[in-house]
């Protein structure tokens, strides 16, 4: 298992995939590979990535390796009992950048959340419809440019207006993380992808069954 963990932390997707296949061939159950391999690797990367020592490239590589292995283990997607909760993520309308959003989605998937990606430049109505349809426990908004702030401020009242007032709203990204939760009218402002994940993990603990 350690070789799988090391390959994942190195972001070496080919080695990680080879190791995961070897473990499966040796009869190691999928659940154990996920809990002792993938989740352990994510925890170790998480511990390493403080606000001061966090870079997109390393997280992308780990996230890609985890995604490839998870796809091998669960070719039809993770079974419902394996997910903590479902969250929606988007870059608000007016912001076409999606690198940060994609990284957060990878980190959350690696930590056992089901992530509904509503895309970039996402209109408020699409966001609301996505939150209602799934349904989700949280909406995550990633913003690289400051001009989306008015859009972000509209989300929580709009959710409440549709009877979704219990859905948490989390903001992050280079522009939004400069503001406070009060200034954005959100529940939490994440400084990094892992910071946002910690907030959600506290609210929605891991599935232990």
């Amino acid at each position: 298992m350690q070789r799988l963990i090391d390959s994942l932390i190195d972001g070496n997707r080919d080695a990680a995939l080879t190791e995961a296949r070897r473990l499966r061939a040796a009869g190691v159950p999928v659940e154990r590979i996920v809990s002792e391999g993938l989740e352990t690797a994510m925890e170790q990367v998480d511990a390493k990535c403080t606000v001061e020592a966090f870079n997109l490239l390393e997280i992308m590589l780990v996230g890609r390796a985890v995604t490839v292995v998870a796809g091998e283990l669960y070719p039809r997607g993770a079974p419902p009992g394996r997910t903590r909760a479902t969250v929606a993520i988007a870059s608000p309308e007016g912001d076409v950048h999606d690198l940060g959003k994609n990284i957060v989605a990878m980190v959350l998937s690696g930590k056992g959340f089901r992530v509904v990606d509503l895309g970039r430049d996402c209109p408020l109505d699409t966001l609301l419809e996505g939150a209602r349809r799934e349904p989700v426990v949280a909406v995550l908004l990633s913003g690289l440019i400051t001009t989306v702030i008015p859009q972000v401020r509209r989300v929580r009242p709009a959710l409440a207006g549709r009877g979704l007032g219990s859905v948490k709203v989390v903001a992050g990204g280079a522009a939004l993380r400069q503001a406070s939760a009060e200034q954005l009218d959100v529940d939490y402002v994440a400084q990094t992808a892992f910071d946002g994940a910690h907030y959600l993990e506290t609210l929605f603990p891991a599935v232990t069954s």
Partner: protein
Amino acid sequence: MNAIARVRAAVAFGETDRTPVIPQIFAHAAVLCGVPVGDYAHDGALLARCQMAAARHYGHDAVFAFMDAGVEAEAVGSVLRYHSAQYATVASYALAPDDAIDGLAVPDPHVAGRMPELLRAVTALRAGIGDELPVVAVVLGPMSLAQQLMGAEAALYLAADEPQRFEELLGFTTRVGLRHGQALLAAGAHVALVFEPAGSPAVVPPAYFRELLLPRLGELFSAFRQAGALATWLHIAGPTAPILGNYPRAGADIANIDYEVDPLDAARILPRTCLDGNLRSLSFVLDSPDEIGVECRRLAALFEARGGFILSSGCEIPLEARPENVAAMVAAVQSDS
């Protein structure tokens, strides 16, 4: 002391009549003048008029020749989508992940895309302000241009998966920046700023900056100095403390520091490099003029004895910044002079 002399003195750690103040006003100048950002980004004469109007309005110490981060990429072949109230964005990239990099041609700044309009902007700025205010030409850095040519995600994966091809791409983007910057200086720009957000430690590990970017930044700055730049300026936003110590090797006269960098740490790491910064950009949207004034006076006082400092925003002044906040920044140092 005019603004050029003030900036020149700050770069040389000489005496200045007051702290130089250069809020990084790009298309905020268009918004201030009621001009659509898309028009501003297409018309060099209009850009120059807006920049000069902003400089008259606020009284700060430099104007910028910068349309958006897509000028070079568009000239190479990326297709942009323009907007009236925000910067252009890339609609389709010039380079697919498997495309041959040697198939790309370095664009001629006198004919390609909007580059000639940017040259016209520099000419108009020099005609309007002469040698009173520095005209700062902004060139996109090699790593950021690579992302504009193939997408951020694809470029970063290329850096990790195929380092040799990525280096080939960086070689190309460096040549684009070099030719573009030299043309802007030849048109009359005083200062060459390399804008390299993708080189931030928030994006790539410091080793990538050191190994891949530093030599290429050195190439750019050396060429710009030979082309007559009064100063060279490296602009990387985010938590740059781990890479600041490399900046002198790149040949940067001015080092931008963002709000995430402690100014005293930066001064310790770069004892003989002029620093600019480091107000939080979003403060110009969300805070009050009083708060901005307090922070500006604090920063000016921190550097009073050291010198080598330009009061600035840590990154761009947002398009929708409150003008009274920008005015408060300039007033904070003018009132102390």
